[in-house]
């Protein structure tokens, strides 16, 4: 299956695009993270966080097929 990936901040420059269609075999956080690092090795140096439906996701979070946001470290304020 495919899931839409949306990049933010510096990652947009690193990847060269705002969005990306990621092919995944399992709808799980770890699987998405591994697949993302494999297909986008340029983001590996970053401490990233993923979010779906406006919530940070982690290992146990139950996911759906909504877009996944990929965040570099935050720097608001």
């Amino acid at each position, binding site marked *: 299956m495919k899931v839409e990936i949306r990049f*933010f*901040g*510096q990652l947009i420059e690193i990847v060269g695009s705002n969005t990306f269609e990621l092919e995944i075999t399992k709808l799980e956080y770890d699987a998405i993270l591994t697949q993302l690092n494999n297909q986008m090795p340029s983001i590996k140096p970053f401490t990233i966080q993923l*979010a779906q439906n*406006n*919530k940070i996701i982690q290992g146990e979070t139950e996911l759906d097929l909504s877009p996944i946001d990929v965040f*570099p470290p*935050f720097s*608001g*304020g």
Partner: protein
Amino acid sequence: MKSIFKKGEISPKFIAQSIENHQSKIQIGAHQTFMGQIRQDISQGRKVVGMSYTAQEEMCNELAEQLREELITKYDLSCIHIYHSLGYIKVGALCFFVFLSGRHRSNTFHALEECVNKVKSNLPIFGKEIYDDESYGWKSNT
């Protein structure tokens, strides 16, 4: 849902208007504000001339709403307002404004610190420093 974002800088006039809007709330005895101002840092010999902000706006607005509700209850406040700039903000201008109010002052100090720190650590906002040689660099709160 209320948006915390403002295109460009947050003006002193906007802050005055926010204060004025609370002068009819006669149960309030204490206001506090935090304002973030773009500082002229030096990075590898280059002067910062401004910052450019982007964000996952929808998520920020949801998190800000939750944070407001949480802190109003925890610290028994009357209200909390949070504003953040998007786009280019020059050195000396304000990019971040937190405004909270309560009956008494005692609770407001810790509330302000917690609110400011949580916005900085939990909201997906991304700031890019623009230097005087037109190069730029990305900031990180961690």
